[in-house]
């Protein structure tokens, strides 16, 4: 949350009221408590990456054996795939909230119109929704990290450090997702988002080191966002820290700032006509 406030202050140049941002988060906590359906959604979001981890990481991993990385380190395949699944769950947890749910509130039930009739400002709404998206993502990633530690895929110490890194991943993807959602015309556009999400899921160094691809493809992947999330989190959970991870952090911070800025600008221009 501290990062949210700091970044948004820079982005917009006016102060956010933590109480008002908190009131937006409070609304989502209330919605979570009132509907049993929401818990089901949350549960399914947790199981998806766990199932991938078990089937591919452990199952296919038994066929693949150990991986020898570029730096000469040898890593069991499951240890290589698990952090990628963690990054993916941080991404999809936040995106579920800021694309599907955000669009529904934005376009159909007019939640934000109701909010804008109060002292809340568009930036505060965006910051509150994003913080909530990050919290939702962290429910997935927290549980997933426990699974990783239990399976011996990382140590408790590295898991504790990886947890806040998944918050950053959630904030970055959540912010960009929210900005994109303000441009969405109808439900059919969500197919595009999920296709894009799936492409990122497959080709971000998730299942094989990007160095295995031809150089142009490797460069292309290095431009896309999930790659940076995977690199950052894999570096932490495997305990192989490197300076290039600062670049990954910077990339995610830029996503956060730009996404949040665009989202609140669009909220203003669409809802405050």
């Amino acid at each position, binding site marked *: 949350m501290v990062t949210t406030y700091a970044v948004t202050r820079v982005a917009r140049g006016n102060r956010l009221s933590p109480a008002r941002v908190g009131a937006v988060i409070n609304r989502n906590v209330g919605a979570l408590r009132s509907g049993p359906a929401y818990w089901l959604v949350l549960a399914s979001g947790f199981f998806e990456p766990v199932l991938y981890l078990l089937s591919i990481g452990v199952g296919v991993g038994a066929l693949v054996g150990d991986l020898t990385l570029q730096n000469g380190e040898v890593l069991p395949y499951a240890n290589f795939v698990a952090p990628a699944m963690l990054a993916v769950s941080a991404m999809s947890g936040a995106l579920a909230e800021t694309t599907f749910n955000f669009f529904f509130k934005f376009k159909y039930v*007019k939640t934000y119109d109701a909010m*804008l009739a109060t002292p809340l400002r568009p930036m505060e709404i965006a910051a509150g929704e994003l913080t909530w998206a990050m919290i939702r993502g962290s429910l997935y990633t927290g549980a997933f990290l426990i699974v990783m530690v239990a399976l011996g895929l990382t140590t408790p110490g590295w898991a504790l450090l990886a947890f806040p890194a998944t918050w950053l991943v959630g904030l970055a993807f959540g912010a960009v997702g929210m900005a994109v959602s303000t441009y969405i015309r109808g439900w059919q556009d969500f197919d595009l988002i999920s296709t894009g999400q799936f492409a990122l899921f497959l080709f971000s160094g998730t299942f094989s080191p990007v160095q295995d691809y031809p150089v142009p493809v490797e460069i292309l992947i290095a431009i896309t966002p999930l790659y940076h999330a995977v690199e950052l989190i894999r570096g932490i959970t495997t305990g192989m820290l490197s300076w290039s991870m600062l670049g990954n952090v910077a990339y995610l911070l830029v996503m956060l700032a730009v996404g949040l800025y665009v989202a609140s600008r669009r909220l203003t221009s669409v809802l405050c006509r």
Partner: protein
Amino acid sequence: MIYARGLVKRFGDFTAVDGIDLEVAPGEAFGFLGPNGAGKSSTMRMIGCVSTPTAGELRILGMDPVREGPAIRARLGVCPQTDNLDPDLTVFENLTTYARYFGIPRAEGRRRAAELLEFVQLTEKSGSTVDPLSGGMKRRLSIARAMINEPDLVLLDEPTTGLDPQARHLLWERLFRLKQRGVTLVLTTHYMDEAEQLCDRLVVMDAGKIVADGSPRHLIETYSTREVVELRFGDDAPATYVEKLAGIGERLDPLPDRLLLYSADGDAAVNEVHRRGFTPSSVLVRRSTLEDVFLILTGRTLVD
């Protein structure tokens, strides 16, 4: 409470509000009357500080809506044209959650929510979600929500559109009570009876402009006659009778289905129609209403 001079709102080439002047005093119930597309809602959105005026001067509660929007909105209660209640929350939570947006502490929010649900007669629905509520109940909940911050000024955009007569009367009665408490009400409507019931003063809007301004009584006296006779002539077009009945009453307005005859004394006018040898298939003498005022001012009826 509200002060506007030369207020304009344009959307691209379209001018929704075309230079209006307004003043609303504390404790007043003020209405915007006009057909759909007259600029009522655009004006309300500017007063509600969610839409920026294109030109002109606007002060709400003595403040500038562009620079001090949040401070003004903290003291406004807004009941929008289409309900935007929160479907993921219960009736009670809709109010307590909204209270948090105003920075009202939790305990105080709960106290006010309970009190307001009592006021709008929804206490027994407190734990229900919003979806199963009837249109009238949703509308009452919207009004309760608009009251959660104990506003100085309440904006109601077409508060009873789409409600059945019983629900409308209940709502009017609640709004009348608010007015008695000294809350300033500003509402838009395209219903004459609503304006006559609730408004101390109103402006008639048409095509973005204010075409008349005053109390309902004053408007009727100024622009219309005391009584109106509605004449129907079977299958004949009412327009063909305009010449034949010329000179009776002060004004004749042919509508597609009937002829309106404006006269201080409706019965005398009907006698004159009969004396000239015409026998309308139906005759109705009634008191003049704001509907007539609108027709006289714009030449059009006030239906959707």
